[in-house]
């Protein structure tokens, strides 16, 4: 069975500072990995995903995540955050075959301070 751990429930950071939101997963088989974002009073939307190929994936708004198989991690990073990045971020995992479940982490609330 797969599991996802987001150790940080809240991350406060000043505007224009770098940020890393941590995600670790557990799986005995190959995985697909996702980051979803939920802005205040909005629905969940995909930020980026890793299916195969390059282990570094990027979003259109400057976030990136790197799939690290040896450390079973998929941390989300941004070199310089904006106030508008304030949101809750969810890491999720599923597998290419077998169970069709998506397992989501408990979320990390990113609060960007002026």
């Amino acid at each position, binding site marked *: 069975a797969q599991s996802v751990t987001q150790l940080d429930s809240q991350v406060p950071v000043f505007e224009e500072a770098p940020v890393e939101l941590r995600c670790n997963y557990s799986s005995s088989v190959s995985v697909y990995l996702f980051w979803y974002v939920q802005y205040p009073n909005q629905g969940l939307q995909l930020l980026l995903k890793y299916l195969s190929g390059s282990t570094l994936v990027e979003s259109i708004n400057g976030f990136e995540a790197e799939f690290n198989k040896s450390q079973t991690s998929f941390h989300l990073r941004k070199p310089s955050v904006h106030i508008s990045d304030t949101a809750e971020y969810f890491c999720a995992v599923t597998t290419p075959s077998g169970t069709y479940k*998506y397992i989501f982490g408990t979320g990390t609330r990113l609060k960007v301070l002026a």
Partner: protein
Amino acid sequence: GAGVSQSPSNKVTEKGKDVELRCDPISGHTALYWYRQSLGQGLEFLIYFQGNSAPDKSGLPSDRFSAERTGGSVSTLTIQRTQQEDSAVYLCASSLKREDTQYFGPGTRLTVL
């Protein structure tokens, strides 16, 4: 085009009553998911539909929960004999294929008094 829609947006019910939550996925999306989002709990997978295949019901928390998808489109999640612990936001998502981007609806906030 239209996104995923859910109705009602809010539902307040009394303990012991049955409720039905509706999800209209994006047209053409064969995969449909139901999740439950409780405060501080993240998203909990409930059930997955893929085309005409048998659904993956492994996430349903009890036999009071059931779901169906008619004609490969609209889905209804039914909770019988609601309990206070069923209070949560119920989210529906659809995608073209399982590994594709999931598009989430706005959710139904269920409050059981």
